[in-house]
């Protein structure tokens, strides 16, 4: 090799290596393009299901990775918000008055803020409201109807209890006791609850919605795609009741979708969920009328679907898909609110909080008045008030509690329709105060004048003690139920291939 490098040699070396690298780079580009084809190959591969209902969610993982992965994220409980983040919060601890309002009903035992769909089964088994069948000879306290919204094993079982092919028999399902289906209901809320597994078309899997629509002269199957993006939610997030005796699941939508329509329906059939042990009022328990309340709000009125905000579209890798991590839209303002609204994220968040704050302010008043009214009514009864004297008071309490419960039971109501929620809660306060006024008159008639003595219900424990609940005993039995009974359910399901191993 020459000691001295000539000028042209220098340029050749420099230029040569430059050209070589550039061309190598182009080859790499070409290679990367071919590598990217793997994605298309993958996207075009599909397991074709023959059956509309495939209960094991894991079977969808390979073909729908984006949807499956985002759905899996409903396990996450780290999102915090001013009201109802994704973590579990003991509501009775925060609001002991609710123990009084739900006295005589399982809700006074245990009531938490909701978590993601992936926790549905776990939370249902551990909640004290489902009792502890099989422990110390205790029987079921709930019918199998309680499972209805807890996963794709439900439509599967309704079919198995029918003719096993295409005939659903929901009546046979609802007729069973809760623990009878413990080893069947093992896959949490997932794909087949909303999709036809053969085509992935949206299709609510539960019969109650179809039945309710049919009675109201509507057909779910004729709903538009945009309506379906709410109806798959509305098959569960709605007000319902169990028919006394058969535990058949029904939606009180025959007369319409408002609170007054449902109330008229219930009054007509003389329905009540339980008799309040303090005031002897036949109470209507509202069960999360999320869909109905959302219809009353401005977003619902403008045709915005549940999925538009709770399952926003995303673009990733040039592919548009629906985020299946269903949660508060406040967690992703950049792809929920800001799709339509131009304000900055913090402004929008504060707009939501303001509505929630104002609704909560009046909610606090309603709960105080209503709990006091129940306790005062008990005092009146204990001091000789007659049934005839109590009847109008109980009517007022029933109206008041139904409005309060309807307003608060669907978790997002204070944002979905703040004007409807404040209307309902202010009516609730009004009815409760009318009741208290009437109670004062009745008490005076029976010789009592002055403030009716109030028990100490300042904490959840004190309130539960006041209504006569033995919480340590209930919790102990539940713990043993979770250790002794639930594992046998899961083992049985795994042995039969109904629950896939992790």
């Amino acid at each position, binding site marked *: *090799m020459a*000691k001295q490098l000539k000028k042209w040699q220098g340029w050749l*070396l420099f230029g040569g*290596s430059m050209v070589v*690298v550039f061309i190598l*780079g*182009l080859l790499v580009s070409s290679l990367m393009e071919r590598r990217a084809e793997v994605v298309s190959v993958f996207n075009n591969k599909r397991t074709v299901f023959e059956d509309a209902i495939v209960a094991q969610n894991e079977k969808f993982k390979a073909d729908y990775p984006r949807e499956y992965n985002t759905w899996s994220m409903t396990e996450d409980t780290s999102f915090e918000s001013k009201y109802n983040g994704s973590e579990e919060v003991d509501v009775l601890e925060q609001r002991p008055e609710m123990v009084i309002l739900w006295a005589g009903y399982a809700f006074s035992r245990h009531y938490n803020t909701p978590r993601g769909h992936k926790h549905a089964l776990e939370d249902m088994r551990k909640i004290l409201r489902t009792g502890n069948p099989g422990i110390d000879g205790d029987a079921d306290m709930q019918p199998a109807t309680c499972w209805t919204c807890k996963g794709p094993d439900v439509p599967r079982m309704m079919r198995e209890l029918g003719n096993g092919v295409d005939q659903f028999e929901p009546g046979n399902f609802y007729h069973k006791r809760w623990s009878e289906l413990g080893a069947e209901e093992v896959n949490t809320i997932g794909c087949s609850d909303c999709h036809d597994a053969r085509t992935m078309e949206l299709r609510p899997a539960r019969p109650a919605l179809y039945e309710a629509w049919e009675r109201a002269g509507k057909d779910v199957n004729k709903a538009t795609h945009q309506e379906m993006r709410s109806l798959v939610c509305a098959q569960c997030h709605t007000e319902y009741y169990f028919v006394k005796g058969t535990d058949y699941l029904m939606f009180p939508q025959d007369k319409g979708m408002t609170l007054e329509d449902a109330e008229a329906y219930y009054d007509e059939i003389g329905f009540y969920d339980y008799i309040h042990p303090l005031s002897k009022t036949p109470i209507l328990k509202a069960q999360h009328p999320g869909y109905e309340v959302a219809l009353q709000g401005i977003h619902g009125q403008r045709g915005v679907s549940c999925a538009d905000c709770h399952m*926003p*579209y995303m673009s990733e890798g040039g592919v548009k898909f629906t985020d299946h991590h269903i949660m508060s839209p406040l967690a992703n303002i*950049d792809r929920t609110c800001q799709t339509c609204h131009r304000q900055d994220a913090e402004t929008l968040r504060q707009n939501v909080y303001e509505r929630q704050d104002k609704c909560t302010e009046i909610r606090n008043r309603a709960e105080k008045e209503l709990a006091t009214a129940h306790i005062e009514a008990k005092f009146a009864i204990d001091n000789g008030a007659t049934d005839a004297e109590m009847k109008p008071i109980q009517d007022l309490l029933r109206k008041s509690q139904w409005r309060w419960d309807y307003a608060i039971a669907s978790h997002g109501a204070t944002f979905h329709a703040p004007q409807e929620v404040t209307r309902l809660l202010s009516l609730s306060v009004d009815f409760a105060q009318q009741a208290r006024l009437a109670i004062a008159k009745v008490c005076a008639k029976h010789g009592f004048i002055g403030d009716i003595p109030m028990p100490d219900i300042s904490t959840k424990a004190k309130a539960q003690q006041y209504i006569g609940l033995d919480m340590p005993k209930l919790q102990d039995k539940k713990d043993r139920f979770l250790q002794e009974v639930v594992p046998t359910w899961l083992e049985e399901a795994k042995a039969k291939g109904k629950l896939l191993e992790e």
Partner: protein
Amino acid sequence: MKALGKITNLFSCRQKIFLLVVAGVICGLGGLFLYLLRAHTYIADDPSACVNCHIMTPYYATWSHSSHGRDATCNDCHVPHQNLAMKYGFKAMDGLKHVAYFVTHSERQAIMAEEMSAEVIMDNCIRCHRQLNQEFVKTGRMGYSEQMREGGKVCWDCHRNVPHGGMNSLSSTPNAEGVTPLPPSPVPNWLQNLMNK
């Protein structure tokens, strides 16, 4: 040149060969990066340059169907026009930011103008619509920064659909790829032909 001579004398022949190759590799990679970036397209005002990154597709599609799609380009609104230095300075800064977002996958699902960008856009609204807004009607006499100071409104607070439509999302026009001039493969034809033989 003398200084260069001095520096080159510091290295032995082997070192020089090594350094020249390294310099060639660096320049080659740099050139490749600019080529894949399609850097030459950024000098002019053709809107197709903005869809070099496919995530801009919905914004191109909504603009091309809007009233502004006939006479105004992306640059007419999105870069300042006071002078060439400001124009290219802003373009370079904004462009590099976009490259950084693009390659790190950190784009928002609904792209929104940042503060500096908003100022440029509104001042450009005024630049073109001055006569209409100052002579014929008496709006449009305040620029963006004055409006912000006074707590007033910006143009798009009322003209909400101008020019990108009412929906702002990377997913808003999922089928627009076919009508948008997305960039061709960076692998040149001669190389593709060579490889296909």
